[in-house]
């Protein structure tokens, strides 16, 4: 069978000593930054991106991918032991994971999180391998109207899944789209909203925007709260009891399915997968009152889901060339550095890269279980670093990351500006995630809207007369409708207020 041949080819690429080594580096760095709260895959990738120039494409992408899913493993360690999410996608793991730690079951929680992630990683690697070829095939039929409608679907998805009010999220999307248009217009050469500032003429870089809104703003918000972390020292037996296994297994399965689906959605990824999985788990539980008091399902489901989501969010990137979140936008940057144009042609033109990276994900997951479980003691040491020493270091890493990408001091200044804006948004309950997606997709959307309307002679019906485009728009409309339905609305609000 072709699929097996492709996977075998992928493993033959992923298992070369060089690629194994970089996969290990990625997993190791990912775990480290996952454990450390405040420094995420985004800042790390931004810092490592210029260095990947010296690497061949396959090990470079294998390492960068490893950092992203590796961070999902590391993030759970911090959530369980310290009650602080090491990674934003581990926010819900704190709820039950930390309660388990207080009851002396930290080891079991860590083991279930890691094994659940491994299972989810295995399944989602398989999903990527199975779903990508037909999707690439389909994507080759995509013209401007389809791309535009797909991005509309992605933006609607990010709004529905953002926390807080839907209309605020829509306004943030528009603001993001507008920010994305800053710079020189590709069609007319006209500079828009640049105020004659040189750094703006090529557009605002998304690295300073994303690191400002997430990295710097998070420091500002954290410094308002007292540092009262409880560090669980007793990890206990890593072996979950038979009863814990029995409860966790179905939760892992549900989390994996939900996470894989939500990861594929443009605008999706690890973060919302974990939220949705926790909410769902509570919904189907026989006794929802156990949640928040150390229910193992509350660890198993979101941790499986965030890893599954992190991996399947590579699907839109690998098959369509569309980034579904800022990390994927950086992966596109990494491909461009290597001279590879992301899109449906990657699979046929760069089979080594495509299948090698997919196979490396499974290998990386296996390494991560070893890095995280037996060696958990090493990571605990990092957790003892007090925040007053940690945050200046994070600040430095963000500054170096935003400077080094283009050797541009002005981008560090932009990052400070967006850090300030991120703080304002936090104070006003405006979630920055929809803004970031709008910002990334803004120029792509304008370009595809233009092209679509030129092809159709200015007739906007082109978006509904082409079947694929229509399907995508109907999906977007259904998604919006779903939120307006009272039952779903309540679930959505519940899911977000818990975290």
């Amino acid at each position, binding site marked *: 069978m072709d699929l097996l041949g492709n996977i075998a080819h992928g493993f033959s690429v992923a298992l070369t000593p060089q690629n194994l080594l970089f996969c290990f580096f990625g997993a190791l760095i990912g775990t480290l930054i996952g454990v450390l709260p405040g420094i995420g895959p985004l800042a790390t990738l931004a810092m490592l991106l210029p260095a990947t120039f010296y690497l061949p494409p396959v090990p470079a992408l294998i390492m960068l991918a490893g950092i992203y899913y590796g961070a999902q493993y590391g993030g759970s360690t911090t959530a369980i032991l310290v009650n602080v999410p090491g990674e934003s996608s581990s926010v819900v793991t704190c709820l039950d994971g930390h309660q388990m730690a207080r009851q002396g079951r930290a080891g079991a929680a860590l083991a279930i999180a890691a094994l659940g992630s491994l299972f989810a990683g295995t399944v989602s690697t398989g999903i990527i391998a199975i779903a990508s070829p037909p999707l690439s095939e389909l994507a080759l039929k995509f013209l401007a109207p389809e791309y535009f409608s797909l991005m509309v679907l992605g933006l609607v998805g990010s709004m529905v899944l953002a926390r807080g009010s839907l209309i605020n999220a829509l*306004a943030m999307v*528009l603001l993001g789209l507008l920010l994305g248009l800053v710079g020189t217009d590709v069609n007319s050469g*006209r500079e828009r909203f640049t105020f004659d500032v040189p750094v703006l003429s090529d557009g605002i870089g998304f690295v300073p925007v994303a690191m400002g809104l997430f990295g*710097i703003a998070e420091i500002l918000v954290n410094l308002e709260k007292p540092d009262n972390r409880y560090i669980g020292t007793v990890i206990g037996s890593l072996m979950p009891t038979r009863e814990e296994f029995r409860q966790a297994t179905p939760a892992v399965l549900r989390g994996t399915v939900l996470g894989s689906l939500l990861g594929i959605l443009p605008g999706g990824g690890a973060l919302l997968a974990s939220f949705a999985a926790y909410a769902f788990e509570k919904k189907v539980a026989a006794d929802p009152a156990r949640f928040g008091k150390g229910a193992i399902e509350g660890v198993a489901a979101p941790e499986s889901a965030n890893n599954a989501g992190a991996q399947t969010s590579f699907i839109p990137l690998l098959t369509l060339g569309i980034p579904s979140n800022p990390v994927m936008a950086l992966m596109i940057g990494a491909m461009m550095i290597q001279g590879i144009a992301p899109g449906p042609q990657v699979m046929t033109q760069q089979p080594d890269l495509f299948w090698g990276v997919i196979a490396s994900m499974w290998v990386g997951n296996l390494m991560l279980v070893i890095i995280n479980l037996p060696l958990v003691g090493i990571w605990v040491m990092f957790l003892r670093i007090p925040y007053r020493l940690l945050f*200046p270091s994070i600040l430095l890493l963000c500054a*170096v990351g935003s*400077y080094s990408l283009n050797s541009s001091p002005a981008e*560090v200044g932009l990052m400070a500006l967006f850090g300030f804006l991120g703080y304002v948004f936090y*104070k*006003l309950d405006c979630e920055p995630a929809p803004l970031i997606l709008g910002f990334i997709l803004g120029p792509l959307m304008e370009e595809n809207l233009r092209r679509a309307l030129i092809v159709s002679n200015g007739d906007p019906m082109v978006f509904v007369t082409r079947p694929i485009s229509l399907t995508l728009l109907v999906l977007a409309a259904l998604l919006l409708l779903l939120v307006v339905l009272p039952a779903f609305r309540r679930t959505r609000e519940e899911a977000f207020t818990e975290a």
Partner: protein
Amino acid sequence: MHRLHINRDLVAGLMFAAVGIAGLWIASDYPRGTALRMGPGYMPVMLCWGLILLGGLIAIRGMLKAGASLTAWHLRPLVLVLVATLGFAVLIEPVGLALATVVIVLLGAAGGREFRFLEALALALGLAAGGVVLFVYGLKLPMPVWPSALF
């Protein structure tokens, strides 16, 4: 009868609307074009009107129902962390990574809840040394290490 609530929604709505109005004003001389041949002003103008509309709705909703009230800003971390970052931006090219690191770490640390000068200084020097080794010699990121006047 409701009192006028100054709450998060009201402020957020006004913020969105203000951005929209400013955007319209700036974009007023960008050629608009038609749907068939969009000029550089087409999308910005549509987005700005969208922001004004939504911002208005959010603000009105904020006035009508009691939303979450505004919380105080903590100025010390806000100012020091941002100044530290800007300081790094200004200093990195003229004085190099080592000194810029000391500045950003010391100023940033001063924005924390408990600031211990000697500890922060030790951290700054340690990170400067580690940063130079990691970024410049390890990752080979192109950036000056020392003040250019020295060489």
